[in-house]
Each structure stands twice: as C-alpha cells, then as structure tokens.
C-alpha cells in the first residue's frame, strides 16, 4: 500500500502529460480551455465551411477552445498525414486534432492503430444520441467502439429538375429506362469519389433481390455472381450518360452546377437537405426536388475522430461533444444552414429542444423523415473499395 502511494506520488507529475479521461468531464473541460483544435474536414462545400466556422465561434465562447478548420480536398490526406507522423516517430503533438471521417478512412485508421480512445460514448451528450434507430455505433458495418463520435446523418436522395424530369424514378431499372429516352441527361461523380462509389453501391443494392450479402466482406467465390447485375446495368447505362461516359464530374457538388447549367436533369446526393440549401444559395433552380427509391436508399453517419498523437485531445472532445449538442444539431439540420440529418433521438431530448426540431422548416425540396422511407445499411467497406477499383478498370480508362 505504501509502495503504491509512493509510486503514485512519483508518477503524479507525469499525470499532467497523460491523455485526458472523458469520464472525468470537468477535468476535460479544464484541460481544454486555451487549447487549439485543428479540425481536418473536407472543405469543398461552402455551407459546411460556414457551419464549422460557427461551431468554432461557439466553443471559443463557451469553453475557451479555439478551432482551426483545415480544409481538405480529400479526407485521406489527413489519414496520410497521421501515418507520416507515426512513421517519423512523432507520437505527441501531431498536426491533426480532429478529423471528419467515415467508412474506409476510419477502417484504415482503426486498423493501423492511429486513433485515440475509446472516448466517444463517455461524452455527456452521448445520452441524447439515437443508438437504436440510427447507425451510430457501426461505420460501414465496422464497429466504432467509441473511437469516433457521430455528428450528422446522411441518406442518399436523388435531386431532379422537375422542369425536365417531373416524376420521381422508383428504381434503378426505371432510371435506365428514363436515360434511354433522355440520353446525355444524367451522370454521377467519378469513382473513387465517395459519392460516385455510393452510386455504385446504391445501384447494386437496388438491383439485388437480397442485398444482405453485402453486409459480409467481399468473398472472391461469390463476387462475380453478386456484382454481375451491376455491370450489366452500367454497360447499358454508360453510353447514355452525359458526354457518353467519356467524362464525369469529379465531385458531388459539381453535379449541382451541371443541373444549374442545364447540362443534366438528375443527380445523386448524400444529403437530403442539400437541394433546398442549394436553391437558397442560387446554386439550383427553384424547380429542383428530391426523391428516394421505392425500396429505400443507403444511409450512414458522419463521425469525428481524434488521432492518437493529437496535442489537444481534451479540446477535440469538447468540440465533438458540442457537435452532438441539441443546439449544434438543430442548426445543422436547418436547410438554410446545412440541412444535415440529426443523430439525436427526439424522445431523449428536453421538451424545448424537441420543439425546436419540430418547428424547423425543412425546405421546399427536402423530404420529411417519413418520406425518406426505408434506410438501407451501408455495405461492408471492402465492397466500396472493390467496386470502385473494378469500375475504374472497366469504365475509368475507357474510350
């Protein structure tokens, strides 16, 4: 016993350098004050950038945490950076404190032991999170295990310009039929862009009778048979695409510009509120609306995660906790601001907070939660990688 006390006394000065414990939230708040959090997040969307700036101002006011938004063109850049730091032996004071992440990037970081934690499920606002109805504890079927905190829900919708395409398309075969009648009026972001890959997954899920096989990792024996309908579908669709599939938009938002320019009539989006927000920002005509497929569409969560060598882990947790707060979630869901789905469970909220969500006008082009219908699970991350690779070999270098 005395030995232990002695050891504790000797080790006490070292405790200051130890990682913060999220279970002791007051200590986290204390440590976070004055820290600067470098939040690496995709910077391609101006509305998201504005939201991140707002969140930074709020945590600065409330908790004395400074947030710097590092605008990425590709989240993998952040993964690469942390890896480079590990390679160089920089195990403390890394350049990145928080990353907006999901899917294959999370799987890669988790696999390579580049993450701090577990911490996410100890945050105070975790109590409000909808752990039953929403996929917040698995990320593309990979268990999150408290290594990342959810902050937004996304679901695939299709944006259509009702001036040219008045009626929703119920399924992928119907989409193909419409494309045959209207060649050159549809395209999707070029895989490996995540939205383009999502289109492949969405098409495969819709074409399969039983998409549950996609929950398992890709198996060589069954891969060809399972994906055969997708390649047949794409072989027919590709010559009917915008520019006959010889060029593709490189990102999702680029499709909005194409609709605005009158070049295409239909685009895929991973954000149910994106169309309404874009109309408000003059980026889409006010005739744009959204629809989902009859069998449902893919949904997933966006997370934030903390690298193992972050210099401001406490500050990063304070920011992650703030992002899950009713205040931040309500603002994110406002289509005038961001239009992202909330990760919170309405029944867990205080009455006042819940009313805020109920009062929210989701916008002219946004479907209600009921209209969004069935959410389909993301396939295992290995499918995204494999489909994207095969697409690139089949269509990515085609003339």
């Amino acid at each position: 016993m005395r030995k232990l006390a002695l050891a504790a006394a000797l080790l006490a000065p070292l405790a200051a350098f130890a990682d913060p414990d999220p279970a002791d939230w007051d200590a986290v708040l204390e440590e976070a004050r004055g820290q600067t959090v470098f939040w690496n997040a995709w910077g391609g969307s101006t509305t998201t950038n504005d939201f991140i700036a707002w969140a930074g101002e709020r945590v600065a006011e409330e908790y004395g945490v400074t947030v710097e938004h590092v605008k990425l063109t590709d989240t993998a850049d952040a993964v690469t950076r942390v890896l480079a730091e590990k390679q160089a032996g920089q195990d403390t004071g890394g350049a990145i404190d928080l990353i907006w992440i999901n899917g294959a990037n999370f799987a890669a970081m988790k696999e390579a032991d580049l993450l701090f934690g577990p911490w996410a499920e100890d945050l105070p606002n975790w109590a409000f999170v909808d752990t039953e109805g929403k996929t917040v504890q698995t990320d593309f079927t990979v268990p999150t295990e408290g290594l990342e905190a959810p902050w937004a829900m996304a679901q695939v919708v299709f944006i259509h310009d009702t001036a040219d395409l008045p009626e929703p398309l119920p399924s992928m075969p119907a989409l193909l039929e419409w494309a045959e009648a209207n060649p050159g009026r549809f395209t999707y972001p070029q895989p490996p862009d995540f939205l383009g890959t999502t289109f492949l997954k969405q098409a495969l899920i819709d074409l399969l009778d039983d998409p549950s096989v996609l929950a398992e990792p890709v198996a060589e024996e069954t891969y060809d048979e399972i994906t055969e309908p997708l390649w047949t579908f794409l072989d027919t669709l590709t010559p009917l695409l915008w520019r006959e599939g010889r060029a593709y938009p490189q990102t999702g938002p680029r499709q909005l510009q194409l609709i605005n320019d009158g070049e295409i009539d239909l685009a895929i989006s991973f954000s149910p509120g994106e169309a309404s927000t874009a109309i408000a920002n003059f980026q889409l005509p006010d005739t744009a609306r959204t629809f989902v497929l009859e069998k449902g569409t893919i949904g997933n969560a966006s997370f934030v995660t903390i690298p193992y060598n972050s210099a401001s882990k406490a500050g990063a947790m304070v920011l992650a906790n703030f992002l899950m707060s009713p205040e931040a979630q309500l603002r994110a869901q406002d289509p005038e601001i961001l239009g992202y789905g909330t990760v919170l469970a309405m029944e867990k909220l205080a009455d006042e907070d819940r009313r805020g969500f109920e009062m929210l006008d989701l916008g002219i082009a946004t479907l209600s939660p009921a209209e969004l219908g069935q959410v389909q699970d993301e396939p295992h991350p290995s499918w995204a990688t494999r489909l994207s690779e095969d697409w690139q070999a089949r269509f990515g270098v085609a003339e």
Partner: protein
Amino acid sequence: MTAPPAERPALSPSRRPLRRRLLPTLPLLTLLAMLGPVAAGLGGTLLPAFGHLPAAGETGPSLDPFRALFAWPGLGDAVRLSITTGLLATATSLAIVVLITAGWSGTRAFRVIERLLSPLLAVPHAAAAFGLAFLIAPSGWIARLFSPGLTGWERPPDLLIVQDPWGLTMTAGLVAKEVPFLLLMTLAALGQVKAQESVTVARALGYGRLTGWLKTVFPRVYAQIRLPVYVVLAYSMSVVDVAVILGPNTPPTLSVQIVRWMADPDLAMRLQAAAGALLQLGLVLGALALWFLLERLVAWLARRWIASGRRGRVDPLWRGIGLGAAGLSAFAVLAGLAGLALWSVAGFWSFPDALPDGLSLRSWGRHGPAATEALGETALIALTATVGALALAIGCLEAEHRYGLRPSTRGLWLLYLPLLVPQIAFLPGLQTLLLFGGADMGRLPVILAHLVFVLPYVFLSLGDPYRAWDSRQGIVAAALGSSPDRVLWRVRLPMLLRPVLTASAVGLAVSVGQYLPTLLIGGGRVATLTTEAVALASGGDRRAIGVYGLMQSAAALIPFALALALPALIWRNRKGLAIG
C-alpha cells in the same frame, strides 16, 4: 555613360575580410539548401517505389510497385497525355511568344499585347483554367451569348469540349498561362541584347521585320530564355491543378493519377504512386532530352536558313498569326477572369442566359472575410520567401562574378532540379524530412519549402540578365575608385532594376500559386488563398471560386504591375534604362 558621378568609396577594411569569407560560400550554401530537400524527398520516393514502406508493412526491395503500375490499364493513355500535352503546350507557347515579339516588338500593338499579357502571368493556373472552362464549355459563356438566338439551343449540346480525351483543352489552358510567362522572360532578356539596333540594321539590309528579328535577335534571346522554356516543359508535363480542371479523367494524366493513388486510403497504393512518380520523373527527363536534341536540329536548320539570305516575303502573314494567337490567348484569360468576377456577384444564373438574373454581394459577404485572412497569410509567406530568395540569388551571382565561381552546366541543372523534378515526386519525402527535424508545424517550414521553389525561379529569372550585364560598366566604376560593393549597389543593381523587379514579381507569383508544398509541409494548417481556392474548386461552387480566384489573382498581379511600372518611373530621366 549615364551612371551617376562616383563619390569617394567609404572603405571599411574591418568588414571586407568577413565578406570575402562569406560570399564565396553562398553558392554552395544555396545549392545545399535546395538540393538537400530534393534529394531527401527523392529518397523518400525511391524507397517506396522499390517496395520499402515500413509504415504500410512493406519492406523491400521488390519490383511489385512497378508491376502494379504497369498493370494499370490507363497507363499508356496517361503517359501519352503527359508527353503530348507537355510538348504541345511548350512548343505552342514558345511559337506564339517568338512570333509576337519578332513581328511586333517596338510597335504600339506590341505594347498593348505586352500590357495585356504580362499581368496575366499573375493569374493563378487554377483560376485561369476555371475561367477558360466556363468560357468554352457547351453551357459556357460563349454558347450562352449565341443561344438560343443563333444556335437554337434551349439546352446545352452534349459535346465533350472540356476534358477531351486528347487533352487539347488542357493544352490550350496551359498555353494561355505559359505565353505570359515566356513573354515576360523574353522581355527581361530583351533588355540585355540590342534588339532594336539589330533589327534596324537587318531591315536596312532589306529583311522583313519578323525575319530580321528571328535571324539576328532570336539566337541571343533564346540563349537567355532557354531554361524558362525547359521549366515550362517540365511543368506542363506534370501539372496537377490545370489537368484536374481541364484535362481528361478517363484516364487522367499520369501526375493526376499519382495524386489520386497518394490519397488512397489503402496505404499500399502509396508504393504504386511512388513508382508512378519515378516514371513521371523519367518522362520529364526524357522530354527535356528530346527538346535538347530538337534545339540542335533547329539550330542546324536555322543556320542554313540564315545563311540563305532570304528576306522573308510571307512576314505579314506570320505577323498576323502571331498577333491573333497572342490576342486570343490574352482574351481567353481576361474573359475567363471577367466570368469569375461576374460569378462572384451573380444571383441565380442558368443556361442559356448570357447574364445572371440579378447581382448580389452575398458571395463576397460570405467568403470575403475568410479570403482576406488567407490573403494576409499568403502575402506574408510570399514576401518572406521572395526576399530570402532574392538575397541568396544576388549573393550567389555576385560571388560568381567576383570570384569566378560560375557554376558548370551540371551545377546549373542541379540548381534547377526543384523545377524540373515533378513536385509530386519528392514533396511527401520532404514532409518526412521536416517531421524528423521537428519542424513540421506552421508558417516557417512552409516559407522554407516555398523558398525551394521560389529560389530557382528567381535565379532563373535574374541569372541570365545579371550575367549578361556589361561588366565594363563595373570596370569603369572601379577605375573611378569604387569598391566592389559600391559597384554592386550603385551601378549594377540600379542598372538591373527591371530584371530584379521582374524576378521578385515572379518569386511572389510562384509563392502565391504553390499548392502541394503549402498543404503538405504546412500539415494543412497554413491556409493560403491557393489552398483555400483548390479546396473549394473540388466543390465546383463558381461563386466561391470567383471570390477566391479574383483575390488570388490580385495578390500576384500587383507585384507585376509594379515590376513594369517602377523602372519606367524611377528611370524616367534615363532613357536607356527606362525602356530596357
């Protein structure tokens, strides 16, 4: 003799020995400062290319990365694109610059073109590419102007103009940007050769304006702009941002594909990327060698042509072509910029409207404050890097001059390595180097990384005019009692004001335009106008791109305006220096 009358030199014997020790070492220091990062960076590429990347669980050596690279089905097209767009863009840019300078220098039309083109060098490649894309796309500005009236298009036609598989649009975008660069280099070189006198004599002998210039002035000018031409070739072959915006994507050029592999979450792809980077390096070196041989061939043919004594009967035709091409190239960038400016204040604007429904300052309100903050960061980095580069370059050149340290041809090639080696080939390795040095954070390493790229450009821009300076001026000044330092400060640098300012403007523009070094070395923490603009570019929001593109252009444009205006202003009483 227009130099001011010499005063008595203020001798400071105590300081001279120190300088004598310091100055001769400067060239070596400069070389080390630049070659260290490049060599380390290349090492960081070489190892993974041969299968050694412990962080990804790979320990080589093996040839698997190259096998994977050659198994990529798009490799043939990607390599072809890299070569054809690079050679075509360089040859076309050089031809336009030569035609316009040969056919029109000394005329009013030339001064107009010069004023139009020179500042366009400042326009960042990405902004110019976006402007061009909006101009010539099927739903672009030109189509909008004539639709539906003349064309009958209610909807834009489904034509593959931008991102065509032959890379022609991309080549056009590169030409529009490289013409101003080569023209400015040519103008700086013209100050060192007695072009007007030579042409006057040639014309008196009955040569056409263009033929006379080509035969008497061009050989001397080309000797001075040769390295800039090589840089244009190396750059055009490995450019990323322009290729992403205007180039094809099925498959893209090799360098774009390398960037994609580097960004792949699967770390093993970095090995394949490293192998691709080495291939890209080989392609660039091969193309440079080819160009070098072509130079020999052209020189041999041209000597026969010069000796033939032909006076140039079709000169007027070629002059017209030169003026047209230069005008078109200026128009493309200017109209593209106008498009960006209009988008930055546009309300809703769809096809086929030639103008937006309404104007609004909303985009500036949204993006202005952040853009201004990025402007401050950009300016700070660019100014520091340029001043440092200028000091080193002048120090080196002066040491060369005083101690006869003129580097060998091989030394020069080493000096220009950072420009001739594709950035993508050695920057990730450079990042690791800085990490080991514990200097991975913040602004200072970014400035040092910019210096690696800024210094060669400054050197490239300043070196030839500096060396071509008539040293008899210095001998005269020394004979009148001036110390070497005094000759430098009171005679040489004032006479070389135009090339010095040009070099500074080039340095600033280079720094402002750097994307990969800022992103990789700054760890993403240093936000300049360029990193912000390219991040936005992936989202395709033309209004935001308009705001950032204009700010970015302004950041680099003002120094060029000064580089052109200041010598004329300062030397308004020195006719020979003012015109240059």
